Structure formats: C-alpha cells, structure tokens
C-alpha cells in the first residue's frame, strides 16, 4: 500500500508541475476578455439606457453619442438567448434606474428550435456566465466547471481551444476590429444564405416545420414583466438587416407571418411597444453600415442608436 501511495503521489506531483505552468501560459496567450464578459464586472449604477440580446444586440447598439448625456450599457453577448437575457436582467436589475429604457432586440433564432441546453455548442458557450452570474442563474450549473473556470481555466476548455491558444491563434469572440469591418468587402448574398440557414432555414429542410421554443417565449414575457416591475420601459425591437438577409428569410414560407403575429401578440399582452427595423430602407442596402449580412458595424450601430434615440427613446427620456 505504501509503495502504491508513494507512486500515486509522485505522478500527482509531476502532473501538477506540468499543469500549473501550462495553465499560466494558456492564460497569458488567451489575452484579455476573450468572451467579452469583463464588462459585467463594471456595470454602472443608475442605468438610463440599455439593451439585451444576442450578437444582433451586441453589434447593433453603439452608445458613443448617447453616453455623454445618459448612463448606458450593452448587456448583449454573442448567441445569447432570451432566457439568459432574463437571468442577466435579474442579476443586474438594481443597476437599472426607474424610467430607464430597456431595448430588447429579438433575433429570429432565439424564438425557435429546441431548448438552448440541447444545442451543440451549449457547454462551451455556457462557461462565460460562470465569471459573472451567481450559480442559481447559470443553466446546468456544475461546481466542477466553476472551480476549473476560476482556478485552472485550461482544465475547463476543449482541446481545440487549448491548441489554438497555445499557438496564439485565439481571438476574442467579438472585438473592435471586427466591428469596424464593412460588408462591402464580402459576398453578402452568400453570407446571408448561411446566416438564414443557421437562424431559420434549417427548420424548413426536408419537410420540416417551424418549432417554437416555448421556454424562450416565457423568458421574453418574464423579462418584459421584470422591466415593468422595476419601473423601466421595455421596448421590443428588431435591428436593421441587409436586404439580402431578409430576402433569404422570406423564403421560409410563413415565417414572417408567424413572427409578426407573435410580436404583435406579445406587445398586446404586455403593453411593451414593438419597433421593427428589420426592413428599414435607410439600412437595407447600405453595406458600409454592416459587418456582414445581419450585423451592423460600429458606424451602422451608431446611426441606428441615434435613430432609436430620436424615434423611440425621445418619447420617454428627457432629450
């Protein structure tokens, strides 16, 4: 038994001696804020203007001009579902001032498909929430991921991420340089096709039909109700897309009919106003305001946020 324990201890020490420096190297190579969650550690108090949402919300809002006058914050993250919008809201609602405007962008994909936890990349995506949400707000929480994410991040990521990071090939999920990119440099039509297939089109393949994600719809109602309870004004919106993208989505027979009927129903049920910018002619063909078929770039987001300030927020905020 003594021999066995000694050998196990030696192996443990060797592995620790390898793991600790490799982990330090990994953290160094990873750079700062790889999953765009650092912002949640400095959420301002008394927020007057904010938004939730997925990448459409993350890229679609640029508060550069508004932040001089108002306290603003962008709570969106890439591929974020409404259920996490609501969890983040619950965690930070004390930071939102009474009378604040809360924009809730609705991405088409976030209302469709199976529950997020069954989507392929859920586990790797879900890790980002461990750094700023309490355990009770994290889906499928497990202590192991929490421990490793905090103390030995290399042990919480997949082999591909380790290899990429050690090769220095890892980049932020989303970064400033990408946001400045203009869609004029890309094949927008092809990009729109791929985005449509990812978001909506896959549902209609091979005789498929629209599967609505009931959990996400419940979260949307909860989020609106939560905003109203703290005295904030929830505004439902769709952000501008290129014509290429909306034309693709039109191919999904009956999707838009369902979508607008649904949004109007939510608006009617909750009293939250719905503003639809998806087909806005001011944006639809302006590739220089987009980074790809369905995401505004920094300049487009600035224009769009200013438009929102004039056309929507102005009704509620002292301009």
């Amino acid at each position, binding site marked *: 038994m003594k021999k066995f324990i000694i050998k196990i201890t030696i192996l443990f020490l060797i592995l620790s001696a390898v793991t600790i420096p490799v982990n330090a190297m990994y953290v160094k190579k990873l750079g700062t804020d790889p999953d765009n969650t650092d912002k949640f550690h400095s959420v301002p108090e008394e927020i007057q203007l904010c938004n939730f949402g997925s990448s459409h919300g993350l890229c679609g809002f640029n508060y550069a001009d508004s932040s001089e006058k108002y306290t603003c914050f962008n709570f969106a993250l890439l591929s974020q579902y409404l259920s996490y919008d609501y969890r983040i809201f619950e965690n930070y609602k004390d930071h939102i001032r009474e009378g604040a405007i809360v924009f809730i962008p609705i991405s088409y994909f976030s209302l469709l498909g199976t529950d997020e936890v069954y989507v392929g990349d859920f586990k*790797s995506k879900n890790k980002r929430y461990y750094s700023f949400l309490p355990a009770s707000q994290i889906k499928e929480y497990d202590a*192991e*991921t929490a*421990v490793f994410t905090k103390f030995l991040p290399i042990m919480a990521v997949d*082999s*591909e991420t*380790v*290899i990429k990071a050690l090769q220095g090939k890892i980049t932020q999920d989303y970064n400033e340089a990408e946001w400045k990119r203009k869609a004029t440099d890309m094949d927008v039509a092809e990009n729109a096709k791929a985005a449509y297939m990812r978001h909506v089109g896959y549902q209609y393949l091979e005789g498929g039909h629209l599967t609505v994600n009931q959990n996400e719809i419940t979260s949307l109602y909860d989020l609106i109700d939560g905003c109203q309870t703290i005295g904030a004004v929830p505004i439902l919106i769709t952000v501008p897309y290129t014509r290429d993208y909306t034309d693709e989505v039109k191919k999904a027979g009956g999707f838009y009919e369902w979508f607008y009927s649904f949004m109007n129903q939510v608006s009617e049920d909750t009293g939250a106003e719905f503003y639809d910018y998806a087909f806005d002619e001011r944006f639809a063909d302006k590739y220089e305001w987009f980074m790809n078929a369905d995401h505004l770039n920094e300049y487009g987001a600035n224009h769009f946020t200013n438009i929102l300030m004039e056309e929507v927020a102005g009704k509620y905020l002292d301009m």
Partner: protein
Amino acid sequence: MLFNSLSFAIFLPIVFSIYWLLPHKYRWILILASSYYFYMSWNAKYIVLILFTTCVSYGAARLLENEKNLKKKKMILGISAFLCLLVLFFFKYFNFVSESFTAFLEIFTIQLNPITLKLFLPVGISFYTFQTLSYVIDVYRGKIPAEKHFGYYAAFVSFFPQLVAGPIERAADLMPQIKEEHTFDYDNAAYGLKLMAWGLFKKMVIADTLSKYVSAVYDAPQKMAGFSLILATFFFSFQIYCDFSGYSDIAAGTSRLLGIHLSTNFKSPYFSQSIKEFWSRWHISLSTWFRDYVYIPLGGNRTGKVRHALNLLITFLASGLWHGANWTFVVWGGIHGAAQVVENIILPENRMKSRGIAAFFRTLFVFLFISFAWVFFVSNSIPDALYVIKHAFDGISAPGSYIYNGYAGIGMSLSSIIKENVFLVLLLVYDWMSLKSDVIADCGKLKTPIRWAIYVLLSVTILFLSQKGAAEFIYFQF
C-alpha cells in the same frame, strides 16, 4: 456522479482509503453506502427503484430456494420477473408503447391522443434489472444458492463501479468477491489505475471529441449532405465504442482498486471477421445474457433452420429494444439479427475466420456493415436514418470537393483531422495488440523511464486534450 468528473476524483480516493482501512466484515457496508451515495448524487428519489428491485429479487430467490413444487416455483419466478420488468416498462417503455399504439390506430383512421408520462429515465435501470433477473433465474435453475445476507445481496445489485452501465454481472461471479476477504495487492491496484487511465483516454479524449462532430450531423441530419454524413457515421462507430468500452475499463479499473474483478465487456470488437464474432466481442455481458436467458431457452441452434433463424431474430430484436424505446433501436437489432441469419446460411462454421489479406477485407467489410447499422442506432428517427443513407453520396461526382466539404461541413480543421486520426490509430493499434496479449500488463514490464513517460504522456493528454464538462456516457440512457 460521472467517472469523468471532479466529484468522482474526490469520491474514489475516499472510498478506496476507507475500504482498505476497514476490517473485512464491515466492507460490504461501505460498498453499499458508497454505491447508494454514488447513485443518489444523480437522483436521490430513484434509489427507491433499486431498493424495490433488490427486495423483490432477494425475496423471490429466498422463496425459490425453499420451494419444491415446480408450479409454485414457476409462479414465484414469474411474479418476480413481472414486478422487476414492470418498473422497467413503466419508466422506459410506457410512452413508446402508448405512442406506437395510437400511431397504429391511425392506420384505421382512429384518432387518439397517446397517454404519456413525463418521467426521467432512471440511469442504469436496464442494467440492474437484468442483473437481478439473471440472479433469480439462476436460483430457479439451481445454478446458485439464494443469498441469505440481504446486505451482501444489496451490495451486489448496487455495486457502484458497474451499477449504471454494466458490465451486467452474474451473481456467481460477483457475489463471492463481495463476500470474500481481500488483501491489498499492489500489482492489481496498479493495473486497475492503468486500466482507468486508458478508459478515461478513450472516453474523454476520443469519444467526447468525436461526439461534437457526430452531433453536428445527427442532431439535425437534414442540414447536411454528402461526405459529412459518412464521416459522422464512422465517427459514431468509434465514439460509441470508446464511450462504452471506456466506461467498462474505468469500471473494471475501479473495482480492481477494491480487489474485485469484473468480467470483460469488450475484446477489440472492430477486428471481427463476422457479425457473430462481433457479438462475441461487443458488450459481452449483455450478449451472453441474451444468449443464456433468451436465445437458448427459445431453442438456440438446436432446432430446425427456420426456427433457428427466428430465434436469432427474436433475440436481436429484443436486444435492440433493450437499448432504447424507439423503433430505431428495434431496426438496429433487426439488422444485426438478419445479418447473422444470412451469415449462418452463406458461411459454414469452419469458414467464419480467414487469414492474411482475406482477413483484412472481411474485417473491413464487417466494420462497414456495423457502421451502416449504427446509422439507425444514432438517428433520432427512422426518417432521419433514411435521410442519411439516401444523401450520404450526394456530390460524389466531384470527389475532391465531396471530401473537403465533408470535413468542413462538420467543422473539422486540419489540426483536428490530424489529432483525431492520431488518436484513432493509437486506439486501433492498442486493440490489435490486445488480440494477442494484455497490453497493460505488457506495459508494466517496460523499463521504468519508458513506462513513466507513457503514464505521464497519457495523463497529460487526458488533462489537456480532452473535452471538458463531464459529458455523460451514452449507455447511461439504456
């Protein structure tokens, strides 16, 4: 609690230490308590089902031993089997039967809403139900005596290393080991650890990584076409093998740490030259279970050719259904059963094995056939499986882009292609060597620096090149 989780990495050393510190007469209590804790860490309520099955089978065996009247013995056996299978049916098959029945009625334009239950499938229910069934049948047949000590019996049913995904142990093999006194044996424990490491490598490095690519296709196959479908199918062949045999290795290794030997569940199955041989190498504890308790009682091969074929088909259809309450599993079982019927017709017993290049091509053919059958196993529905088969060769007229798009479609980069191939080659080399010798034992005979280099390299690979987040083992759902 999963073998590939941090909680198990804490749990096992604690159990191991207490086990060897305790006097022998108390060890069964530790095994029982730790096994119940192990199971309850997944779902505390469902321990009631294990307790129920344990009590029913224990009581039935005791009654059977004291009963001389054959009719009454049959009745006791029947009631015990009915009660144990009723639990299994209720949790696993009720919704399937209800939905299939209403679908059947629709053929006659009778519209009914199926009555369905919203219940979690208890982990490992098929494994411990079959283990207890075989125990009661063996007592009925007079092969083994009924266990009088309820504690030992409960520890046998719930023994944590094999509780949730087997091997399905026979009482004659496992019960005496739980009862007998063990002394710590260094070689045995060291072998157990090495086996666990190899199992973790198969599960966390190979199976979990491949699962990403398999899910990319089989979660919604209609999104894909062409070579991606073929790649995902081959990857599933290795994923399920590494996942399940990895579990069996970890289970056997864990048991060895406690001085208990579990039966071998896999013997390099992808090196089989016939479907019959495959089933003597794949999930051996289940195939021997079906052989002893279904196939042979049906008459086995000691009947006419037609009846023999029917026996094979029934056995494999039942085996398919054991795996899951879905027609996809039934079809999968049916394919294997039918293949064995055909094999029996075209291949006489003395031509089941070849040598040289013929052996290579036969092995390859069997692997391709088994992979084809996995399409039904992994698909969510029969239409999904048919879609995969129908569209697997879309775009093959341009072979270059067919292959390139196949890899790109499931999100594989060049580095991941190289990495997965290196690991798969390593797996096949290990399995090939295992055909002739015990690779782990051989490894122990290497010079110390080489041996330790292998241990460290394997451990570092598991630590850094595995998929993280303690993914469940596929066979837990069965």
